[in-house]
Structures are given as C-alpha cells and as structure tokens.
C-alpha cells in the first residue's frame, strides 16, 4: 500500500469522526448529560489525531507543508480550527465550547473533500520559505476566529434561553463565553496582523511590491478593519454581550469570504486553486 492510500483513508476517517463529534455535542446540548459531553470531546481529540496523521503522511509524500492549493488550505484550516478549539478546551476546561466549533470544522472539511486532492509541485511564485510562515499564521488566526465565533453563537443562544430558565443549561456561563470570545479574537487579530505583514514582505520579494490591492490582500485588510472596529468598540465603548457577539459572527463570515469567496468569485494573483 502506498502513502497516498493511507492519507486518503485517514482524511475520510477523520471527517467521519468529526461528524460524530458534532453529533455528540448536539446531543450533549439537548440532553445535558455530562458523559455525552466528555464523549464528544474524546471523539474530537481522536479525530484530531487521525487528521494530524493524514497531514503528516501528505507532508511526507509531497516533501513540503500542505499549503499549496485550495484543498490543502481548506484541510489545514480545518486542522487549525480543531487545534485552536482543543487548546482552548484544555486551557479553560469548557466542554460546551466544542458545540459550535466542531460543526464549523466539519463543514470546512466537507468543503475540502469536494476539492481536487492531487499533490502538485509548488509553482514558482510559491517556492519560498515565507509560504510556511504566511499560511501557518493564517491557519492559527482563522482557527482562533472560528473558535471566537463559536463562543459568540453560544453566548447568543445562552442569552436567548436565559428568560426561559426551565432546564439546566450546559452552556458555560454566558459571561465567560463573552470574555473568552474577546480574548480569543484578540489573539486571532494579532495572528492576522502577522499574516498580512508576512504576506507583504513576501509579496515584496516575489512580485516587487509589498501591497498591490489584489482581492485577497484587500479582503484581509477589510477583515482586519472589522476586527479593529470590534476591539475598539469593546475597549472604548464597553461593548459587550450581544452586540459584540454579533460583530464576532460577522467578522468570521468575513474571514470565510476572504478564504473561500475570494478564490471562487474574485480572480487575482492569490487564487491558487
């Protein structure tokens, strides 16, 4: 058996495991059983390990990091989302965080699974050590924004159910969701800044100009402005709770557009499909 066979197998396997984890979290949400929550977390972790194995095999097979076409970006993005989720989970020990993050991961993986998976050598413009720094930070940044958006959705649902107060909710304390979402956003913003900066330095080397209003560049700037606005309103106007949560969701939609929409809808130097 060759490496590719196992890579595809592990990819499919982790996709299935992520679906199971998402279902587990959903059942946890409605049933409020701790054991179900623990199970969902364990399944997510198992999925992440299998997914990592698939990534490692691909790296061995291609002799480079998996950052060269849309499939590899989407695959790495999924990996980043789960990584950030698990990191937050084990630092802060909130089982329910996964409820709204794992579905994002599995949707992103679903998108990846529809793309051509062929391993192609890097085209000349991508042959640079900046590629790993630039895309590596993007994965962490987007993963953080995904977790922040998941936390914000959780907050919004929590707020909606607050009045009813009938059954015991398994969502962590709303206020913690709100704060954590803010802190994770701040981290993602720092990473996004690095993404843009490393991109500019790289563009200077590869294309001669550090900024050229390419759609991808422009949309990353727009995303960055949106999160700058979020941070300012939060810090200076004391925006919290609902408004901030909606803002975080909008920010993440913008991230997704920068990631997927720009490649599909707007042509530019950055569309490595």
């Amino acid at each position, binding site marked *: 058996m060759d490496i590719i066979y196992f890579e595809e197998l592990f990819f499919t396997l982790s996709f299935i495991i992520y679906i199971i984890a998402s279902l587990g979290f959903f059942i946890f949400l409605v049933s409020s059983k701790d054991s179900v929550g623990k199970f969902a977390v364990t399944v997510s972790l198992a999925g992440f390990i299998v997914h990592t194995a698939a990534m490692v095999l691909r790296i061995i097979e291609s002799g480079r990091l998996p950052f060269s076409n849309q499939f590899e970006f989407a695959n790495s993005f999924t990996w980043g989302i789960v990584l950030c989720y698990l990191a937050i989970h084990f630092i802060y020990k909130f089982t329910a965080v996964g409820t709204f993050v794992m579905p994002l991961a599995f949707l992103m993986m679903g998108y990846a699974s529809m793309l051509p998976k062929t391993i192609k050598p890097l085209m000349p413009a991508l042959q640079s050590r900046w590629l790993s720094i630039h895309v590596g930070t993007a994965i962490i940044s987007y993963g953080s924004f995904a977790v922040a958006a998941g936390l914000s959705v959780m907050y919004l649902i929590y707020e909606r159910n607050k009045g009813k107060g009938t059954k015991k909710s398994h969502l962590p304390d709303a*206020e913690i969701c709100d704060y954590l979402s803010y802190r994770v956003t701040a981290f993602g913003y720092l990473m996004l800044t690095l993404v843009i900066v490393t991109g500019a330095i790289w563009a200077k080397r590869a294309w001669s100009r550090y900024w050229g209003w390419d759609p991808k560049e422009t949309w990353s700037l727009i995303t960055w402005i949106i999160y700058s606005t979020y941070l300012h309103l939060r810090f200076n106007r004391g925006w919290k709770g609902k408004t901030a949560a909606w803002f975080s969701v909008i920010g993440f939609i913008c991230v997704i557009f920068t990631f997927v929409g720009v490649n599909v809808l707007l042509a530019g130097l950055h569309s490595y499909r």
Partner: protein
Amino acid sequence: MIKKIGRFLISFRFAIVLFIAIATYSIIGTVIPQGVAPEFYMEKYKSFGNIMMILQFNKVYSSFIYRGLLLFFLVNLTGCTIDLLPSQMRRIKDDYFPSPRKDSENLWDHKKDIELFKLQLLKKRFKIYDTEKGFKAAKNRIGVLGPTVTHLGIIVIILGSFLGNLFAYEGFVNLMPGETKTFMEQGFSIELEDFYLGFREDGSTEQYYSDLKVFENGKHKDSKKIWVNNPLDYKGLSIYQSSFGWVSNLSIKDSQGDILNQSILKNNEQYFYQPKHLTVYLYGYYPDFSIDQMGQPMTLSQEVKHPHYAVVLYEFGNYIDSYITEPGQAIKYEDIEITFEDSFLYTGLIYRKDFGYYFVLIGVLFLFIGLLMSFYYYPKFLVVEENSILPITRQNIWGFTLQMKKILQANDESEKEEV
C-alpha cells in the same frame, strides 16, 4: 465652532465612520474590475456607469476619494493618539492608582494568608505599595502605552507608503539574451547573459532563471542568477523575474531560396512586407503543440518537444489564410516563401526602488509591539485591604481575576505544605 470641528475630526465616532467608509470603498474595488477603459463601464453598467466614473469606481485605490479618506484617517488617528498621551503619561507614574471598577470581583477569603499572597505577587513581579489598611499592587504600568505604540505604527505605515509611492521608481523591461538595460540614475546597467526554464520530470515548469551581469562604466561588477522569489538587489534597486516569452526568426525568401527579408517576432507580433503589401502575423509559437477542445492551438508545456507556429497572412489588410507550420517549413505565397524557425526565450524583468518599504517595516514593528503590549502586557492593579482583594484593570478583567484566583488557590496549598 472651529474647536468643535477639531474635536469631531479626532473623535472616536469619526474613526468608526472612516473605518466603515474605507472598508466599503475597498470592497467596491474588489467587486468592480479596476483600471479598464471607461467605455467598458459605460457598456456594462449603462447609465450607472457615469456615476461610477464620477465616484472613481474604476480606480478605487488611487482615487482622490480614497486618498482623502486615508488622509482624514491619518488626521483622526494622529489627533486622538496625541489627545490620549497626557492621561497615559499620568497613569504610568507610581502615584497613579485607579479606584476599583464595577466589574472588580472581591476575592477576599479570611482563610488566605495575606503576607504569603504579598510574597506571591512580588514573585510575579508586582510592585507593592503598603497602605494603612493593607497594600496595593501594580504591574505592567508601561503597557498603558500599548495603543499609542500601535497607533504610531499605523501612522508610520500609512505615511511611509504615501511618500514611498510618491518617489518610487519602477518599470518593466523585456530582454533577450545578450541585451542590456541601463539605469542612468543609478549609474549601472545589467546584461542578460542567459534565460532558461527549469523543468520537472512531468514537464511542468519548475522555475524561470535569468543570469544577469551588472556593469558600472563598462566594468563588470556583479553576477547573479535570479528567479521568482530571488531578486537581484543592487544600489537600492531590485530586479525581479516576472515573465517570459518566445521570440521567433522570420525569413522571407524568393523562389530561388535567396533571403529577401528577415525579422524576429514575438508572439502576437506582425511584420509588414512592403513589396507585396503582405502582413505576416505570428499568432503564436507552441513548443509542445496540441489542439484544445475549441480547436485552438495550444502548448502542453514550455519544453521544446513538438514545436509549431500558427501564422496568419493578410494582403492589403484582407485575410488570406492561416497556417500551422513546423520550424523551417515554408509557407508559399505567390512567388515567395515565408518560414519561421530558431525560436528562443526572452525574459521579462520588473525593476523597482521604493524606500517606503523600510518605513512600512519600521511601522510594522511598532504595530506589533504595540499590540503585544495592549493584549498581553496591559496594566494590572490590586487593592488588598481588610475584607477585600480587588483586581482592577480596564483590559481583561476576567483573565486577570482568573489569574488571581489561581494564585490564591496556590496560597492554600502551600499553606498545607507548611503545616
């Protein structure tokens, strides 16, 4: 009145308006094709095209509107940063201490050993100020300057890129092997020694390589092989591998085989042969010729495996016929023969000098340090008095409180150890 306008210009509200305006205008620039001829917009968007031209939607990022927005943004950001400075300078000093805020949670617990807590805080690099009823602690005071440093970074980036673009020197040049390009102002010239492509086993292009030689007053100074992602830097000017193409030798002969005329053509170039009012148009050279689904000629790779030319002839501007020929294969027209052969590669180089880039790098450094200070080195204060332990911070009260709780927990455990 003027004061009121001034306050508005540096106000936070205006900043948000500008944020939204800049973002919206940027989005327009990514949706509407940029830099195309005005007729295109008129045709595509009909009567709305006029309005779009007035609003400069055809060149969003270089429009006066966009520059105006950025200028206002610069004024706004500079103004509000300067405005903030005095209060920040005050807060850095030791004699400043904020009073507890609404969101300060009281962590007091009579079981805790306060003296031990004090030691724990000292170990965490808190500065301790003893008071009559207990003590106060502070850390990371300098972090209050985080936003200012961030803002400064952004100001430097915008100003640097503005000025840089104003004075940038750039251009594009095609060179065939043996040709030279002189940069008068910089006082040197480059000669293309050779240009070639690197191929992989599957025939795909691995890289584009230009061998360049640098000359100053006729003296050979430097040599470098450049490729994409590896430019030549010389006297502040950078020279980048950007594109490439094929040039082909054209010869027109009479029926005896004597050469009447010769020329070299790039793809999509034409040659006019006066005596017969004949236009020879080289539609393309295909090193690895094939036909695509639409019946159009194409090349499978850039490797010379199966070379062909696509040629079109016109007489007095009227179409005669199109031809696919091999190298050296003659197209016969009346009493003359037209042949293409000996194609070779030329390189396309971009050269650019832009000192704005170095400002941008400095600005980025400030921006990044500022962000780290704002998010992870923000000021933290504690008031510890009888029946109260109050954490105070504007930035991340939740995280700070959590951290203090952990320290207080450790306080318990270490006590047990001592017992």
